[in-house]
């Protein structure tokens, strides 16, 4: 397999994000938003055939549904209405990739509101399923705009999904450990598996320096032991990505749709 020369940052991100599901076996893989959804499809079609995907509405599918294809004939393999999504969530047999608005050093995330919850500066969606997802199954994240507003110095304004903040857990409450997967951004891939769940950079996208990522992050980052450069997509992966996103919705996700290799 040869790595391609010409690819966009979005395509690099999709390939990096697909890795979130490696080794998961048979679980419900939910990629919310265009890039995570393409990534889940790519993972299933290449190295993670056990993943169960949905059509984004109420059915499970064995063939990932291409984005934005109104005429696509859906061939359901099973039924997954919202009530069963919750059954899946609570059983732990799910791994979602979501896009929060804020993430902090504990891996806690917010999609609820900005500012004071009682009278928010900006009301967003509400906590949705984040609290339950985060205590029941594995969660990864995709952030298209890596900066200090998203990776906050202080704790996130509203803790919608739980992370590794011990202050949030009374000693008497036994708990399953929070299972955070990877965080893929427009600059790098990181996780919260450093010493004491510290954030660590696993890979830097081509042309991005560690110092640059640190400068855009509100909390300290570590270099993972084997920190490397994010792997370029192969031609085979690019062909699958084009098939899963024929109308190139992926071009509108990261500001300016930059190339995967930064111009020198």
């Amino acid at each position: 397999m040869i790595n391609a020369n010409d690819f966009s940052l979005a395509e690099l991100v999709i390939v990096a994000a697909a890795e979130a599901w490696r080794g998961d076996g048979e679980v419900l893989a939910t990629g919310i938003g265009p890039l995570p959804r393409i990534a889940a499809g790519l993972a299933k079609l290449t190295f993670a055939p056990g993943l169960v995907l949905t059509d984004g509405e109420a059915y499970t599918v064995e063939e990932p549904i291409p984005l934005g294809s109104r005429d696509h004939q859906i061939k359901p393999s099973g039924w997954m209405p919202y009530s069963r999504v919750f059954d899946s969530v609570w059983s732990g047999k799910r791994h979602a990739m979501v896009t929060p608005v804020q993430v902090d050093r504990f891996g806690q995330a917010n999609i609820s509101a900005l500012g004071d919850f009682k009278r928010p500066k900006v009301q967003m969606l509400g906590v949705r399923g984040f609290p339950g997802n985060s205590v029941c199954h594995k969660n990864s994240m995709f952030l298209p705009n890596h900066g200090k507003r998203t990776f906050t110095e202080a704790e996130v304004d509203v803790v919608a999904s739980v992370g590794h903040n011990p202050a949030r857990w009374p000693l008497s409450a036994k708990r399953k450990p929070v299972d955070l997967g990877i965080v893929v951004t427009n600059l790098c891939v990181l996780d919260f598996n450093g010493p004491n769940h510290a954030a660590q950079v696993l890979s830097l996208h081509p042309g991005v320096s560690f110092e640059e990522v640190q400068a855009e992050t509100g909390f300290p980052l570590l270099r993972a032991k084997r920190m490397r450069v994010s792997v370029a997509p192969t031609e085979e992966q690019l062909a699958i990505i084009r098939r899963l996103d024929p109308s190139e919705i992926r071009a509108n996700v990261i500001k300016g749709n930059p190339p995967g290799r930064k111009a020198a």
Partner: protein
Amino acid sequence: MNKEMDAKSVVAQLRDGMTIGVGGWGPRRKPMALIREILRSDLKDLTIAAYGGPEVGMLCAAGKVRKLIYGFVSLDAIPIEPYFRKAREAGSIEVNELDEGLLLLGLQAAGHQLPFLPTRVGLGSDVMTYNPYLKTVRSPYEDGEELLAMKAIRLDAALIHVSRSDRLGNTQTDGPDPYFDPLFARAADKVFVTAEELVDRIDISHPHLAKNNLFERYLVTGVVSAPLGAHPTTSHDGYGWDMAHLKVYSASASEESGWKRYFDEFIAGGEEGYLDRVGGRAHVRALPIPAF
């Protein structure tokens, strides 16, 4: 036995201060014909529980809401409901913002006549901070685990849109997802449904669709014939949401006296002419059901 009612007589059974659950999910299968009748009424101080879509925003805009119980409020393609956002940012409503699954469990507890249901959902998150009424309970078994005790959400009334109903109150809901309509129905003292199609006896006209029945007729107080009554939300398998209309509605939220103008243009004139004012029956019937 004939449970047929009109929307006005349903609203006449509702009272100020009631807790009302609304079926559907975001901009999907909302009983909008009944919501609009509430908007035209002088009902006030309502507590609304919903997987919220435009009905929540409209009820907030019209000043009908004292308190909201929700996991999200969204118009999907327009992610943030504009009037819900406005009400929140003005601090003008009390809220119980819950995980979607906690809302599910609260309704389920009410429907099963339980005070609460135990769960891990919400622990460690700000759902506990901003809903200080939520308490924990300890497992009585060897594990001794501390769990959140999701309090029952009892509803005075539930408003639900269905595909068809008969006059006895038997209903069928087409489409791929029941959402949590059955839980809303069981949690409520009274259930009022709006139906795309009202038939005499569903067992005679549509027996092959019995699996589309989501809750028993003994739960149903009244049925309202409301063809296309979910507009501007999706009603499977009939018609999709009216995103162009939802955009007009959303845009009104950032205009001076925008809500009054929206209300006067589309809602004030009564349900009779509503469909004509939003483009006509043929327009609504032809709205494609969105694919994802």
